[in-house]
Every structure is written in structure tokens, then in C-alpha cells.
């Protein structure tokens, strides 16, 4: 289980709180993170779907992008690296996007928000150093990237999440899905977005690192709120059909193959001026060779990442994320299959420990999204 360099793991500002809560700490993206608390992954997952779960996602990279001439300059600069429509992002709004490579692969996935006077970015922990270097190198004069290593990030997710946080800051209840703003929460200044990565309604909150523990304790004291670890975060996002960078998307997968064409702005699809536009255009016109799909194994046995996918005995793809879905109450997976096998309901076999397990292509998400509308 130990990873290289395990002795020099980084910690988030909430590490002491996790240990105090009985969190089982594991290495993840160079950080010691709680995979679960004593309640266990199953209970933490189900609590998020029924009430509200608090996640520490402070390992993720946060940064501001500031333009001397305003956010328009910063947005224009970021569009050098992503097919997302950043220039069209209005103040108080957030958007999910991809950083793409010149070859049309996915360098990372990220969130970008327009805070009025600056852009606010959240990127993956495993990619933040690479992302920030890539962005720095691409910026024109007058636009600056300011990493925010002194901020923690917490996610409060679930059908009771917004009602719970609104007892401390009533204005948050008025945020629309993918809306963002700054709020004073129990004396802590926070950047709050109505978003997350569980498929549930909820918020993500960026707060100063030195306030993070007291802030988290205030949230855990709210009715319906329980802590949840990385294990539940992974099963929740898988059921919600959301990609994990490094598993489901990477530099070899294109936005078209990954079924993430919706992250490409309409204007960007007329300009074709983003990295990898040539491959994306070709695949949109001629069809990608493979596609990311949902997969439901029959029976109870989970098929994990890297499981070979066959159709009629011929290898046609690979599982990229797989496990047990507590809300589905059965195994769920996603992966890439050859395009001719990607239609919903197509029968597949998953080669688990040398034995074929019958499965079918299934629509994503496995559990309906319940975002605020």
C-alpha cells in the first residue's frame, strides 16, 4: 500500500482534525488524506446522498488569475490553454473545463470562476504543479497567476448541505447552481460556489488555511453534517458519472473520447483556436475510435480500473474506474470501449481474474444528479 516517498507526505490544514475524528490516513497525490472515518465508506457515501457530508479537498490547487486590464484579459489568456468559453463567463459564475494538450489530450480538468475582479481556479492535486507551470508559461504580459497555497478548500455536499450552511450565511441559499460569491461564515471570509463533485446539491468553500479547522468544526456542529473521506468521494463521483483525472481522463484521452464535448464553448467550436483543436475537430466530424461509457456488471462482483473489456471474446476496451456503488447497491464502472460497442445496452464481458463477467453499457450518471436549479 505504501507509495514511494511516503515519509514526506504533505498535510492539509485539517490533518489534525482528521486524526481527531478517527480518520484513516492514506497517501493520495502526495498528501496524507483521510480515506474514511470510523463510520466507513458505505455509511459516509449514503449520508452524503441523504443528508450532508463534509469533505476536505484542500489538497487541490487553488489560484487566481489577474489581468492588469481586468478579468477580460485573464479570460482571454486562459483560453490559450482550454477549449472552454472563459470569456463568456459572467461575474458570479463558475464553469467546469479542460486544459488540453497540442495533441488533443487532456492535460487536466478544472473549475474556473469569475469573481468580478479576477478569475478563481481549482485544479487537481496531482496536477497542480504542472498546471501552474503550463499556465505561467502561456500568460502574456499584464496577466498574472497567483497560486493560493495558504487557502483550504472544503466541500459540503448533499440534499441538506445548503440548508445547513445557510444557517450561518443565509445568502448562500440564493446562489444558483454554479454560482459563486464571497460570504462571511461564522466570522470566516469564504469564497463559496454552489458546486461539487458528488452529483448532489452543495457548496465548495475556499477559506484561509489558518481558519480552516475552526471553520470545519463549525460546519460539523450543524444538524445533518458528518465527515466523509476520499473513499466516499470516489464512489459518489463514480455513481455521478464524473471523471477522475489520471483514471478516466489523461493526456492520451481526447475531450471527444471522454464524452466531455459539452465543456467546449460554442464560440470555441467556430474559432478552433485551442490546443488540440485539430484532433477534436476530426473526431467530431468522423467519430472517435473509442468512447467513455458507463458499465453495469451483472451480479454483485465489482470490476476495478484496468479490467479488460471484451465483446464476443475480443478485447474492445478497458475499465478506467470501477467499484461498488452504495446508492446503486451494486457494482458500477466506467471505461473506454470501441465506438461500435458504445450504445446503451450493448452486452460486454469484463475479464475479472481471468473469468468473463457479463455486463452492459449503461447511461451515465448511475444516480440522477440532484443539483440546484
Amino acid at each position: 500500500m505504501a507509495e514511494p516517498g511516503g515519509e514526506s507526505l504533505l498535510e492539509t490544514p485539517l490533518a489534525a482534525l482528521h486524526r481527531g475524528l478517527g480518520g484513516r490516513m492514506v497517501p493520495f497525490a502526495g498528501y496524507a488524506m483521510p480515506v474514511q472515518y470510523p463510520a466507513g465508506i458505505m455509511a459516509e457515501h449514503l449520508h452524503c446522498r441523504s443528508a450532508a457530508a463534509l469533505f476536505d479537498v484542500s489538497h487541490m490547487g487553488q489560484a487566481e488569475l489577474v489581468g492588469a486590464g481586468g478579468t477580460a484579459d485573464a479570460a482571454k489568456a486562459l483560453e490559450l490553454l482550454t477549449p472552454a468559453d472563459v470569456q463568456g463567463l459572467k461575474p458570479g459564475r463558475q464553469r467546469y473545463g479542460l486544459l488540453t494538450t497540442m495533441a488533443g489530450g487532456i492535460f487536466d480538468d478544472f473549475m474556473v470562476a469569475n469573481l468580478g475582479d479576477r478569475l478563481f481556479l481549482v485544479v487537481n492535486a496531482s496536477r497542480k504543479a504542472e498546471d501552474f507551470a503550463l499556465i505561467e508559461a502561456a500568460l502574456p504580459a499584464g496577466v498574472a497567476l497567483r497560486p493560493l497555497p495558504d487557502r483550504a478548500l472544503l466541500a459540503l455536499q448533499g440534499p441538506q448541505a445548503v440548508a445547513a450552511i445557510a444557517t450561518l450565511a443565509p445568502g448562500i441559499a440564493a446562489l444558483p447552481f454554479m454560482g459563486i460569491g464571497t460570504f462571511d461564515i461564522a466570522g470566516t471570509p469564504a469564497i463559496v460556489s454552489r458546486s461539487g463533485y458528488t452529483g448532489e446539491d452543495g457548496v465548495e468553500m475556499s477559506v484561509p488555511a489558518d481558519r480552516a479547522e475552526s471553520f470545519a468544526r463549525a460546519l460539523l456542529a450543524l444538524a445533518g453534517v458528518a465527515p466523509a473521506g476520499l473513499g466516499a468521494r470516489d464512489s459518489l463521483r463514480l455513481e455521478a458519472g464524473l471523471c477522475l483525472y489520471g483514471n478516466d481522463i489523461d493526456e492520451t484521452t481526447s475531450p471527444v473520447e471522454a464524452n466531455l464535448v459539452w465543456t467546449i464553448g460554442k464560440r470555441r467550436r467556430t474559432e478552433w483556436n485551442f490546443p488540440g483543436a485539430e484532433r477534436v475537430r476530426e473526431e467530431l466530424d468522423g467519430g472517435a475510435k473509442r468512447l467513455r461509457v458507463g458499465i453495469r456488471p451483472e451480479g454483485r462482483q465489482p470490476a476495478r480500473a484496468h479490467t479488460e473489456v471484451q465483446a464476443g471474446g475480443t478485447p474492445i476496451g478497458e475499465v478506467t474506474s470501477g467499484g461498488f456503488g452504495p446508492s446503486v447497491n451494486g457494482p458500477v464502472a466506467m471505461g473506454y470501449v470501441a465506438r461500435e460497442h458504445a450504445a446503451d445496452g450493448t452486452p460486454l464481458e469484463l475479464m475479472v481474474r481471468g473469468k468473463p463477467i457479463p455486463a452492459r453499457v449503461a447511461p451515465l450518471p448511475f444516480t440522477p444528479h440532484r443539483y440546484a436549479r
Partner: protein
Amino acid sequence: MADLRFTKDHEWIRLEGDVATVGITDHAQTALGDVVFVDLPEAGREVSAGEAIAVVESVKAASDVYAPVAGRIVESNAALAENPALINSSPTGEGWFFRLQGVDAAAVAALMDEAAYAAFLETVA
């Protein structure tokens, strides 16, 4: 009831008469977390000591289960197919995996006793 003996792979074995019952330890089920599936060996199969003959899957991981000693599978725990969570709630009771016949009692006695296993866990903690 006969004493439990333990392996370094965190199986327990209890020999009663000529039938040995095998499962995974409380330490193992705690480390795995919520168990959601088990793949058990079929009755009649001859197994050797250290052979991977069952699989236990939790929400987060899959893990092999090994035969602590050689023998012939006479029964697997059918209740686990319906309710694999028995492995978490009662690892050394209702959560047993399979039963072996024709085992060498001396091979069972040579495994760790409870105190030795507790000491072993200290070294891997």
C-alpha cells in the same frame, strides 16, 4: 471450542474434529472496510497451503484469501453471497469463508496462536 490459529495473511483457522473452518481476522475486515462481495471455492476442490482460493471485495479494494493449510474444501459459507457484511460484523463467527477436511493437525498447530498474532500485528502496524 478449539483455539483459533492465525496466518501472516490475516486468515484464522479453527480445527474441530477433522474439519477446519477458515475466515479472515477482525484486523483484516477492519482494514478492508465494508465488504460487498466474496468469491468462494467450490466444494470438493483440493487446495494447497498458501494457495489463493477466495477473493473478498470491499467498497474500495479486492483482496485474495489463502488456504492456511492444505486440505479439501467441504463447504463454503452460502450466507455470505446474500450478506457479505457478515464478514464485517462477525469475522470469526457467522462471517466464516470455507471448511476444509483432511488437514494436518500439526500444520494447524504450527500457525500463530492468538498472542503470537497480536505480537505480529504490532510489527506491521
